[in-house]
């Protein structure tokens, strides 16, 4: 049907993953960090789909569904934690939550 190279798909996934990682490291706002994690997860899912398509097998898509489920669970718990943190510290600054300093 088409000639999309696997290379191109994987490159797209890698770029998205790197962007997500960059966002995670750059931002201090904890909600942005969560969003960046979502981007990274999405990129990983994309990589799975690309790989699955290469062999025309459903396994890649199955893995994507698992990642999707995990992302949903993760975001719900993460948001609850953010709420709690905000109530305790009155800020979204992730550096403020540094009580575990050794």
């Amino acid at each position, binding site marked *: *049907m*088409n000639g*999309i*190279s*696997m*290379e191109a*798909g994987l*490159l*797209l996934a*890698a770029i*998205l*993953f*790197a*962007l*997500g*990682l*960059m*966002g995670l*490291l*750059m*931002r201090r*706002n904890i*909600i*942005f960090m969560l*969003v*960046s994690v*979502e*981007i990274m997860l*999405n990129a990983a899912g*994309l990589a799975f*789909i*690309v790989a*699955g*398509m*290469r*062999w*025309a097998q*459903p396994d*890649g*898509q*199955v893995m*994507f*569904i698992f990642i*999707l*489920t*995990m*992302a*949903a*669970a*993760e*975001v*719900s*718990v993460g948001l*609850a934690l*953010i*709420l709690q943190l905000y*109530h*305790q510290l009155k800020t*979204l*600054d992730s550096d403020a939550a540094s009580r575990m300093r050794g």
Partner: protein
Amino acid sequence: MELTFYIAGAVAILATIMVITRYNMIHALLYLVVSFLAVAVVFFTLGAPFMAALEIIIYAGAIVVLIIFVIMMLNLSEDATQQEKEWLKPSIWIGPAILSAVLLAELIYIFTAMDVPTTATVPVDAKLVGLALFGPYMLGVQLCGMMLMAGIVGAYHLGRQKKKVTHRFLEKEAAQ
């Protein structure tokens, strides 16, 4: 189709760059939706229409909406945007950006060095995915169910509002 893939990929990359550089949270989230939609198109071009639908429904729909709800609950003021501006200085982000770029370069090198053929043209439809899910991946599906359950319980437990704002392990909290 090929063209569609490249356009969608470019849109996804641009939108993602916008996401991580916005000062305003709502703007960032809107770009995030764009990014997810673009990825959904990519899925479609790759021959996974069901996954494209799921991407739109769950990522662009449920998760982003959830985040927006939380932002609304936090009731952030204008200062938040200002603060983001202060936090996002080049001196802060240049280091991580370079490191991430290094990792990306390595990944690109790995992917381009491979001798890969083009992907198969046969689309894999939802029926095949369903058969695989409830066939060989049965255990994984059950584990996912349990994880969602744990996520729900955890979110409920963590999301409760305590009257006291001290650490919940250290002091006796007022009964809910």
